[in-house]
């Protein structure tokens, strides 16, 4: 079946602009995660959704970052007033229910470049 998909695959924007990054999880997966991966680093946790609600948003770096999952499937990560330091690969992952020992399936990521 289809894996996790993310759009766009690449995004170039200017400092101060607003961007939206989309994640389509595997069908039926209730748990959804967003990560940020900077060059030469491992993924850094941003937010975890269980269904429609953000169960843990403690990884969001500041209030410029916001994510939604209104129908419990597709999720959008929104970044306001982008800064050059926001440049990174934004990864989305999903799992069946978010329980321990479940496999997280990652998407290919969106490469964001803020000029």
């Amino acid at each position, binding site marked *: 079946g289809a894996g996790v998909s993310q759009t766009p695959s690449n995004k170039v924007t200017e400092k101060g602009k607003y961007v939206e990054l989309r994640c389509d999880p595997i069908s039926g997966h209730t748990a959804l995660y967003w990560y940020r991966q900077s060059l030469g680093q491992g993924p850094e946790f941003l937010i975890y959704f269980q269904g429609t609600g953000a169960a843990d948003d*403690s990884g969001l770096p500041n209030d410029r970052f916001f994510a939604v999952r209104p129908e419990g499937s597709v999720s959008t990560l929104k970044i306001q007033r982008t800064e050059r330091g926001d440049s990174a690969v934004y990864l989305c992952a999903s799992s069946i229910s978010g329980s*321990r020992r479940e496999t997280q399936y990652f998407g290919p990521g969106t490469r964001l470049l803020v000029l």
Partner: protein
Amino acid sequence: QKEVEQDPGPLSVPEGAIVSLNCTYSNSAFQYFMWYRQYSRKGPELLMYTYSSGNKEDGRFTAQVDKSSKYISLFIRDSQPSDSATYLCAIQAGNQFYFGTGTSLTVIP
């Protein structure tokens, strides 16, 4: 102190070699440990998941956890050029996953 530390390498080995990849972690309460493989411009892919001390084997891959030393390892036997990738250790703590920086591995034919 970061939750998990990993030597970034890079590591270059000849085909057929045994590869050893290692991480250390900070909190003795951590119980769930993972190894991911990430190819260039792709998302990480789960290789091994373990939640106890000792060894877990899957084909050419063996994951080892030493909770007394807070040390986790991944061994790759008979390494192949297709194993060339970045390997990430990760720890699950509640809803959050803490990743190492990744070790870049190149297997030379």
